[in-house]
């Protein structure tokens, strides 16, 4: 059984005008079925307003389904008795690093989660150490978070989630505010967690290059899942993605354009190395 299972998930909210009168109902998530296996790396793409963040917020019980169900590790998110357990199992990392850090010292910030869970002090320190090592931030443990770069702060946020020993981490555009190096650092840390620690990853992003390592890509539009497959399949459909206001990695786009000019190349080239090899054959 999957770690995250959503079936026929619907989320609706009431739109209100200035005076607070109901104007109508918006369906942000529309009958989504999702089954994520333990250890899987799933990327979610979709334009602004396609419903991806709303979907993500259901997984750690920030939002509850209007219809349908969401199970996290077999527990129904609507069951209030399980809410803390669910939030500990499915940790969330948001876009803005400055909104997620509360501690005055890096290691204190990372220890906040496990401390709140009632983990014994000695074990908290063990968890802080292993979490900071997992994201490559251990040498900064005594630093003030204010002095860190965006990418470093985001990795501290991720460490704070890991310290709660989640089975799954949901990252909602974790690199949107970062410089190129920061983006690389965060994605590298996420991949390492997935491959070494087998943490399930759900990555929401607008950067196409970040999803080429995912096991599976889900594309959302108007609250529905409209495409699903391995990155190579998804990125083979350049025109379809453009229609959905998305893009493909620059190397994929270059291969696509060269192919249109009559160069024989396979579909869905994802890396520079692949393109180089295919062109030199």
């Amino acid at each position, binding site marked *: 059984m999957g770690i995250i299972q959503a079936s026929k998930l619907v989320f609706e909210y009431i739109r209100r005008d200035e005076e607070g009168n109901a104007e109508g109902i918006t369906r942000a998530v529309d009958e989504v079925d999702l089954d994520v296996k333990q250890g899987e790396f799933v990327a979610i793409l979709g334009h602004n307003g396609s419903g991806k963040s709303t979907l993500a917020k259901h997984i750690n019980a920030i939002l509850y389904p209007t219809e349908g169900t969401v199970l996290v590790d077999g527990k129904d998110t609507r069951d209030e008795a399980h809410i803390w357990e669910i939030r500990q199992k499915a940790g969330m990392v948001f876009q803005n690093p400055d909104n997620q850090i509360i501690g005055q010292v890096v290691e204190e910030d990372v220890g906040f989660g496990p401390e709140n869970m009632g983990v014994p002090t000695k074990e908290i320190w063990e968890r802080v150490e292993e979490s900071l090592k997992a994201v490559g931030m251990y040498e900064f443990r005594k630093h003030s978070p204010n002095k860190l770069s965006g990418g470093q702060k985001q990795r501290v946020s991720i460490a704070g989630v890991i310290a709660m020993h989640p089975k799954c981490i949901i990252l909602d555009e974790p690199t949107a505010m970062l410089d190129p*190096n920061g983006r690389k650092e965060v994605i590298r840390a996420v991949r390492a967690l997935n491959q070494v620690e087998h943490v399930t990853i759900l990555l929401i992003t607008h950067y196409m290059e970040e999803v080429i390592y995912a096991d599976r890509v889900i594309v959302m539009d108007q609250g529905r899942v409209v495409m699903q497959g391995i990155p190579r399949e998804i990125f083979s459909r350049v025109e379809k993605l453009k229609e959905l206001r998305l*893009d493909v990695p620059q190397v994929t786009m270059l291969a696509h354009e060269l192919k249109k000019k009559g160069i024989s190349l396979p579909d869905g080239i994802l890396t520079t190395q692949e*393109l180089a090899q295919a062109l*030199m054959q």
Partner: protein
Amino acid sequence: MAIILDHVSHIYEKDTEMAAFALKDVCLTIPDGQFIGLIGHTGSGKSTLVQHLNGLLAPTGGHIYFNGRDIHEDGFDKKELRSKVGLVFQYPEHQLFEVDVFTDVCFGPKNLGLSVKETQLRAFEALRQVGFPEDYFYQSPFDLSGGQKRRVAIAGVLAMKPDVLVLDEPTAGLDPKGRDEILDRIAALKEETGITVVLVSHSMEDIARYVDRIIVMNRGSVLFDDIPKAVFAHYRELESVGLAAPQVTYIMQALREKGLAVRTDATTLEEAQREILRALGRDGK
């Protein structure tokens, strides 16, 4: 109509133990009509620099001249300066506040003391320039999508009719199509009006595609200041300061290493495509 930065330094919390250099001896000229890309890692001084351009921050050393006058000398009209050098902050949609889109865009020109008619004409023109659909003029700005909100926020600055438009990461958080739409609009606006644009961005691909000059900041100093091709040729140095070259530059490097005789200085997709076709002997077809 140029902005000149003459040995500008800025120290935060000067004369305290926390004193830290944010800008160190920066000399730059921003002439009319250029499309400039400003890049640098987080904390490199980009935002501090742009806040000096319209006098929001005063240098702790050096001088800033706008049209030949020191902007911090007595009697200099800062209000006028701020309408001439329009600054669009990161996530500008957080600063929308009026009941409808049109009123929000009117706020700037109204504050300049313009007549109602002139204010409205400017708001209308600015919303047209950012490609905002007329049907939504009287909607609450809070009901719009992320991309549309951002257009409204940019229109609010354009309605002041600035000579220089400074945009601090105008595409952060937007989907790929939204990014292209905003940047295409800004490029078209520059063609149409000859406005000077300073674009702060973390996307090397966007920078390579649109600008004619790149200023690279590192630790509060200018590291490079040149045309894109020349700046991205230093991709190793860029990497060492937290930046990178556009993806295509790396693709060309890899192709060359594999033995395809391509020039490696392409910075946009179109250039890369032309160069690969040429190297494969397929350009004539």
